[in-house]
């Protein structure tokens, strides 16, 4: 039987050889292979690489919205680092990342653990907690404005029942960023929860059965089985959120307009104000490059952390 198959293959090969030359190495580099990536490459270059290079070029020029002026070297960067509002916005952005990312990771994990079961109630709550993620930033900030607005807001009403004054989340410089963080956590919690849920559902049930046979308690099971199993997802969630929250804009723009006195102004809002309100495009481009570097560092951290994990 085997001989018959081998013999028929040889006949087939020789018949092919009789008609045309043997095929070239399909792995050999050929220019036409680039056609496969050309559509993506076109958009990548025009929509990402070109604007990036253009932005860097602009940051070295005195430019407004309607034209590029003279080359000014690093003057825009010097102005930027001499501008206390910019430095404040960098600090605000880090503070916001610190407020939101751990909370999103831990709350997302907690919810995923609580809702990782096949019941209707769990399915309902999974949908409920994820539902806020589908809202636009405009709706989210409108909802939280109704909660926070003094005298007439939901919070003011609740505090009013106890004859106390609600904290001024929209106008107190110490609370403004916290108010934005609360709205953001409420808005963004769905994605981390879903990522953790999918990771939890990939942990083999046999390991938990083995742990149960070993009389491991819940905490031991969580610490020794669950956490190590979802560690990569945890890192992924943290880094996705770091990159996302660094780009805070809409919530701050719509809830506090970066105030009071720039206490809740993030870098992107600073860039927006400088480029579109002051028409100082060169300075805005320079600030954008700083933000790009900060996000690049976060993205590289993700790359190295996950790569090391893979090698281990």
């Amino acid at each position, binding site marked *: 039987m085997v001989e018959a198959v081998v013999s028929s293959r040889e006949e087939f090969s020789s018949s092919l050889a009789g008609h045309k030359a043997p095929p070239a190495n399909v792995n050999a580099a050929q220019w036409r292979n680039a056609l496969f990536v050309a559509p993506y490459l076109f958009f990548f270059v025009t929509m990402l690489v070109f604007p990036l290079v253009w932005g860097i070029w602009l940051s070295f020029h*005195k430019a*407004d*919205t*309607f034209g590029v002026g003279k080359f000014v070297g690093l003057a825009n960067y010097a*102005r930027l680092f001499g*501008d206390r*509002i910019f430095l404040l916005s960098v600090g605000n952005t880090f503070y916001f990342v610190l407020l939101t990312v751990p909370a999103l990771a831990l709350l997302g994990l907690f919810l995923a653990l609580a809702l990782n079961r096949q019941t209707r109630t769990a399915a309902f709550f999974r949908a409920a907690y994820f539902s806020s993620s589908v809202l636009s930033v405009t709706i989210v900030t409108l909802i939280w404005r109704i909660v926070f*607005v*003094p*005298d*007439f807001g939901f919070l003011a009403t609740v505090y009013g029942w106890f004859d106390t004054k609600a904290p*001024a989340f*929209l*106008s*107190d*410089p110490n609370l403004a960023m916290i108010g934005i963080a609360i709205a953001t956590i409420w808005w963004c919690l769905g994605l981390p929860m879903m990522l953790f849920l999918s990771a939890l559902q990939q942990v083999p049930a046999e390991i938990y059965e083995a742990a149960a046979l070993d009389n491991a308690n819940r905490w031991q099971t969580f610490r020794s089985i669950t956490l190590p199993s979802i560690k990569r997802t945890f890192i992924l969630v943290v880094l996705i959120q770091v990159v996302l929250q660094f780009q805070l804009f809409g919530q701050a723009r719509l*809830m*506090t*307009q970066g*105030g*009071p*006195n*720039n206490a809740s102004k993030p870098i992107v809002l600073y860039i*927006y*104000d400088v480029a*579109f*309100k*002051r*028409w*100082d495009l060169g*300075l805005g481009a320079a600030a954008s490059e700083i933000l790009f570097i900060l996000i690049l560092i976060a993205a590289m951290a993700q790359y190295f952390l996950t790569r090391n994990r893979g090698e281990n």
Partner: protein
Amino acid sequence: MTRHFRLWIMAATSVAALASASPVFAQDVTEITVQRFFGACDADFGTNTDVTKAVGECGIITSLINKFNADNADIKATVTTVEWPGYDQLTAQFAAGDPPDVVTIHESVLSDYQSKDLLLPLDELLASVGVSADGFTEAGRNGVTKDGKIYGLPIDSWTMLYHINLDLFKQADLLNGDGTPKLPTSVDELMAQAEQFKQKTGKPYFVQNLANETALYTRNLYTYLFQQDSDFFASPTKVKLNTPEAKAVVEMYKKIFDNGYTTKDMDYSAAIQAFLAGEGGVQLNGTWVIGDYTASAETAGTELNKGGYAVNPYPQLFSGKKAQYADGHTWAVSAKDDRTPEQTAAIGKFLKFFAENDFDWSRTGHLPAQKAVLDSAEFKALPHRDTVAPIAALGTPLPSSVQRQFAIQDIVGEEMGAAITGQKEIDAALADAESRINELLANL
């Protein structure tokens, strides 16, 4: 026969469909794009063409444009409504080469766009439709004239005012014998009256939107700097704010804040709600709410209906010239190369329509920009115009050569807010405001 009839019907239908889709018909209607702020109210006025039935800025401008479209079957003014003030969007539109044909622009902002040759000088266009700049009020004409040319059709002059709850003023014993409100004539008198108001009503004298706000702080500062004869913009590219005059104004507002003579933590809409709910005696707001507040005062059961509503210019608190900060709204026309003569003519008709209907617009509470309307008995008969009429003479804008006035407003407001609410020392805030504005103006 039936077959022939069916064929005839089908052929006729096809011809009709082709004809209606042909450019011959499309050319009959000239489309112009109009972009405006003043809010959206399509649910109430989306189809209203009876302007007399409309109230408020949004209602009146929506109805006016509806009426223009209804009166001019050959023109279609397509409206885009933007969030106030809409300049970020407009700047981006200009940069992208796709600005609207006609757009609302404050007089204080015209210079930004005019200096970049983005606006069309309107002298010829207005003359072609019989609108003369001689008919504009002095404030309106000055506001739209740049380098000797007209760059906008002024539609109003506006300023900030004292909107007063007379019921609370009565409770505070702050009414004159004729029922008009007693207003202060000095800073000390203002503090004494505010204290008296607080003692007698248990409520703050002022309802102010101090949260997420920059415009109110800035307009207040400008007004009281004018009243002290401070020439803080002697040069259009350099401001002087670290001065005793500015300090006096900020100290006054800080004292009002510290002594609880004002509402705190409210944004703009919350402040309006609070005033309508009788939460304080005086709301600092613009001419544009006179119509709405008058309507509220005439509605039984409202807080303003209890004792009435009055509106006055800011009181003269300092010994300098009688003045208060003012600005105006205009319709400006973008400079476009690809505009057809028909579109230009349609824009001319649009501007003429607004010039001719300035009275309707003045029902919002703004002062009209047409002298004839300002002097008319019809305008003078509108509620409260007798008390606000003096702002035609009091109204003082910043020098029109000062650019980026809205960005400057943000800086002044941020620093002044920080000083008033105690986040910063007054001297430091004024010094920072001055240096930040000068840095901005040095890099235009």
